[in-house]
């Protein structure tokens, strides 16, 4: 079972590599979005294996907050003021 967690760890490291190296801020915001998705999968796996269904709540909350953060980052990328 922990091979799956190591496998997801490799995916997380790839996202972190893109966050560190990303030339434009748009790359970094994409990598943050994908990092959130990998963490959702991590939570789902943990709840599947241990049988505790609380981690699924974390996955659902993370997907919503990740969506809002992606939208805010995209709005910030455009550089316009937030009022229009």
């Amino acid at each position, binding site marked *: 079972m922990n091979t*799956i967690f190591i*496998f*997801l760890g*490799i*995916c997380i490291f*790839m*996202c972190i*590599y*893109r966050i560190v190296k990303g030339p*434009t*801020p*748009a*790359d970094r*915001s*994409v*990598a943050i*979005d*994908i990092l959130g*998705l*990998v963490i*959702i*999968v991590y939570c*789902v*796996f943990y*709840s*599947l294996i241990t*049988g505790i*269904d609380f981690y*699924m*709540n974390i*996955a*659902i909350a993370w*997907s*919503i907050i*990740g*969506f809002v953060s*992606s*939208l805010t*980052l*995209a*709005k*910030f*990328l*455009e*550089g316009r003021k937030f009022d229009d």
Partner: protein
Amino acid sequence: MIEILGWFLIFNGLCFIFFGCLGLVRMPDIYCRLQTATKCVTFGAGSILFGTFLISGFSSIGLKSILCLIFLFLNSPTASHALAYGAFFSGVKPVEKTEIEEDFLKDA
């Protein structure tokens, strides 16, 4: 039988997530990265969630994974569209290999 299908979907989703993240690393341009990453990882996470639903049936974990699947399929495309829109209007030029007709880039 259903559990075998569920575990097959889970491993299938894992491969999609790995290749999505690999695309995030190796793609030359923000728009290619955006496309590979969000499409593959969303599909991978979706199949993992459906796999957990198949495995755990209509228990609390399964129904929550279906709810997370619905949220994921609603959220992720719109988020990636907003990111592409923001990246385009923040003046990120696509890599030279992409052919674009001239007037497309005038408003960036």
